[in-house]
């Protein structure tokens, strides 16, 4: 494996007295895509939150880009997270959300028009996010995430609300991201997306991780 960007060793997390992660070991290299799979409640989102520094593991060690993950601006300038529900600011259009992202980050990965086209939002550029469908809002969230520069992508069920065609497109976008040197960890229930993105599968079961492909 190439240079390790994410290293998790013996991660243990207990939620409400229920041991969710019991010694999870994961290592993700530079330019690699890892798909974390497993049934509901197995701890995929919890592992992602640990990697994002949003939850402290009860035991074990985690390093992202050579240091422990922290919920701080310096960390978020290198790491982009898409989790839970899509977020937006009231009163802004889809295009303005993308322009805001481009205005805040120097060296965007693509320009706003390109992002609108790539994520199938060009016809909805002047819409406010509450007027979008669930899938379109998820596309907007992914477009904002992939427009800004980053070294690591953490995606929690990115396929949520997306149609089959766009899932294939998303796989290709993620493959390009990794080819440019980015590292991706995504929790997913879609084996097709994991396969199309040519990801290494890590299955969580009984609180432990097992590489399957």
């Amino acid at each position, binding site marked *: 494996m190439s240079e390790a960007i994410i290293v998790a060793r013996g991660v243990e997390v207990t939620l409400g007295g229920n041991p969710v992660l019991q010694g999870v070991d994961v290592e993700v290299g530079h330019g690699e895509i890892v798909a974390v799979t497993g049934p509901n409640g197995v701890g995929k989102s919890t592992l992602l939150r640990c990697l994002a520094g949003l939850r*402290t593991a009860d035991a074990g060690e985690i390093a992202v880009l050579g240091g422990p993950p922290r*919920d701080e601006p310096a960390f*978020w300038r290198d790491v982009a997270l898409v989790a839970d529900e899509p977020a937006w*600011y*009231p*009163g802004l259009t*889809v295009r303005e959300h993308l322009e*805001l992202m481009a*205005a805040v980050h120097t060296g965007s990965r693509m320009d706003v028009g390109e992002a609108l086209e790539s994520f199938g939002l060009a016809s909805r550029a002047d819409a406010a996010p509450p007027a979008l469908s669930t899938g379109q809002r998820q596309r907007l969230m992914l477009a904002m995430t992939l427009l800004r520069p980053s070294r690591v992508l953490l995606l929690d069920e990115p396929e949520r609300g997306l149609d089959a065609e766009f899932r294939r497109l998303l796989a290709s976008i993620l493959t390009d991201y990794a080819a440019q040197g980015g590292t991706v960890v995504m929790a997913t229930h879609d084996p097709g997306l994991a396969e199309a993105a040519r990801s290494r599968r890590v299955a969580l079961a009984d609180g432990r991780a097992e590489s399957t492909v």
Partner: protein
Amino acid sequence: MRSVAEIRGFVRSRSRRPRNWTDLYSTGLGLAVVAAMLSQPAFTLLAAITRQADPSRMGAGVALVMLAGAGFLAAARAIGPVTLPPADAVWLLISPLDRRAVLRGPSGVLLAVSAVAGMVLGVGLLAVLGTPDHTGVRLAAAMLLGVATATGGMAAAVLAQASQTWNTWAGPAIAVTAALAVAVALLGSGAGRRLLTAAASAPPAAGAVLAATAAALAGLLVRRAWRALERIPARTLLDASAGRGRAAGAAVAVEPGSLTWSAEDAHWRGRALRSRRWPALPAPMALAWQDWRRLGRRPGRLAVLSATAALPALVARTGGGVLEGMTAPAAAPGLDAVPGLDAAPGLLGVSLTVGLMLVGGLAAAAAGTSGARRDGDNPALARLLGVDPRRVLAARALLPGLLGGAWLVAVLAGLTVTGALPAGPWWPLGAAAAPALAAGALRMARRRPVDHAMPVIDTPMGAMPTGVIAWALTGADLVVLGCLPLAAALLFQPAAPGGLLAAQVLLGTAVLSISVLREGRRRRDPL
């Protein structure tokens, strides 16, 4: 097909416990207690209106009554006004049942609420105009006029739900009423004073004729609205009932924050926007620009905000110059004093006005904090943007500071112009309070949800949930602390308020600076 009454009876029979005589007893006792509690203030009010009114206060008073009426109808339109409980909306509305029968209950409630509101407005109008003679006839006429106006207005609001034509006219009609109220307030202290005095001293028979005509018109409108009930589209009723469901949910969970977001999203969902290029600004200001753009797209809210700056002056004017209460000269000869107002200690009047100003300033500043509120509720975008939270907070303080400060400047200028405050440069105090208002509004925007784990304290006035109180005071606490010099200046009205102005500048800046510096220590998403 079964009738609505049969179906409602069936639902009631399946409820957890059938209603019995103890329910009737409890309801009756509750009503008797409420009547007993309200009787004393009602008698005091009735005694207070038996007097010759002060012509200089009539304009402001009539304007306040008109604004209250317009606000009542605007609120009714915002709610529906016809709504159904969520269960009825789901099960009874979209069914072959007679729609007017389904809506009979809610319509009755609307009629009762309008009647009560109308009576209050009528008594309020009479309190402003005074009753030189025939108190009983004038009171009855004023109450009938109030009830007729409120029920007629409510019927028009119901018609607006059923008909696009009425709907098109309803909004402008309320706006015109509000504009007329402003005109009455402005002219009431000048050219219109004679007209108002003539109206107040008109023979009681004229008032009775006016009230009877209004009642006849209201009757026609109510009849037409009753017929229109069956034409209200299901979609309109479902939307209104969903809003009522959200309001009920927010009330049950004591979480008003959830209600504001659903209203905000509903507002933007129905708007056609046009993207504009994002300005080239440093990262924190580029992020804060979102609130400027959002507010620029809500000119109506800005207009309402500007209009409310006149309210403290109107209230002070109606009360006979409340802010001069501590040093007010005696009432003009030949005029009876208003019991409860002139008799009230000046300190109380000034304190109330200062409280109104601080709450209003906080509300004005809060109109520019939607970005901070959104990031507080869902920090996903803030993480994606990855900007230093301290610098973001400092940039986000500009707009609420400008809004709150400008509102207070307008209020203080209005109080000075109307003579409620002694002549002098009071308005700079408003500008100096801007940082404290911004700090309070941003603290309010980022407060956590209500902590229901906090204790409930039993008091003689009932149980006090400290979690809700702490939630409600978060933000206001900082404003009170940061605006102490402003409050002191208004309370003591020193001849040279320069020292307090300097203190306000220093304290406001300090409060905002400490808020910004503490931001780095906040965890965004505690687990």
